């Protein structure tokens, strides 16, 4: 009885140890992935340093499913640059090119208009949520980036 009890105990302790060891390894892998992601966020300064292209609006340059690496820099945004932004209230990242820039003389504000290369229309309707829209959009740009942009609906 004692011998069987001892054997069962030793088998159980090996199984438990193996099981715990596997759990810890798994946990390490998951947390390493999280650490790498957070570190990327720190290094690039962007809230989502890796995004996937969701639509065909930038073909033939970017195809659906392409992965983009983004970073933030202090340089001002200029026409022709590709920016990634979210419209207020929506989570979908939009990857389009800036076609108009109006940079204020006295403040750090800049008004932008964007358009996908493959789209016929610019993005006015995308921003539209009312008549004269001023929405603060967090923009993360491919080559150059900005911290804070105010987008204004351009009157036609």
């Amino acid at each position, binding site marked *: 009885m004692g011998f069987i009890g001892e054997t069962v105990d030793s088998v159980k302790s090996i199984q438990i140890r193996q099981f715990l060891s596997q759990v810890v390894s798994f946990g390490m892998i998951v947390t390493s992935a999280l650490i790498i992601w957070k570190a990327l966020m720190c290094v690039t300064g962007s809230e989502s340093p890796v995004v996937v292209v969701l639509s065909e609006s930038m073909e*033939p*340059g970017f195809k659906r499913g392409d992965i983009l690496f983004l970073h933030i820099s202090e340089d001002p945004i200029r*026409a022709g640059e590709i920016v990634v932004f979210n419209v207020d209230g929506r989570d979908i990242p939009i990857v389009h090119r800036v076609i*108009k820039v*109006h*940079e204020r003389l006295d403040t750090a504000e800049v008004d932008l208009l964007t358009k996908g290369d493959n789209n016929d229309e*610019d993005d006015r309707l995308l921003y539209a949520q009312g008549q004269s829209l001023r929405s603060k959009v967090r923009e993360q740009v491919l080559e150059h980036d900005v911290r804070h942009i105010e987008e204004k609906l351009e009157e036609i």
Partner: protein
Amino acid sequence: MHSFGYRANALLTFAVTILAVMCAMASLSDNFNSPTPSAQVQVLNINWFQKHQDGNDEVSLALNVSANLQSLFTWNTKQVFVFLAIEYETPMNSLNQISLWDGIIPAKEHAKFWIQTSNKYQFVDQGSNLRGKDFNLTLHWHVMPKTGKMFADKIVMSGYRLPQEYR
């Protein structure tokens, strides 16, 4: 040590590493290319020049753009995005950049071109500052390589002026 799983893993890791190295080398080879692009833009006509009801000026121009961007293309170039922007200053804005026309050049054969067009995108000011305004026309190009980082450059052509009166 010699199971299928181990071998497949080793093979895959090696293949991905080699692929990454090749992409890096391809992207670096672009640095050896020294491009000599040239461009010329003529404003053929001011089609009309009006002020909207909301107070913003709008201009419609007929342009003649000719450029030779063939030297930008290497074997690692996927496409070149070229656009013509008008740049000017106003009392409220230190910089205004408006893209008038753009195009995508998919291959070297199409990189030497001559087009005559009116502006593809509306040239609307924020306000009514355009009468007699001096402006620059800048031809920008963004090179998208097959692998590697995108880069851009431009040619600035200055000395243009809008008419003093609406028409």
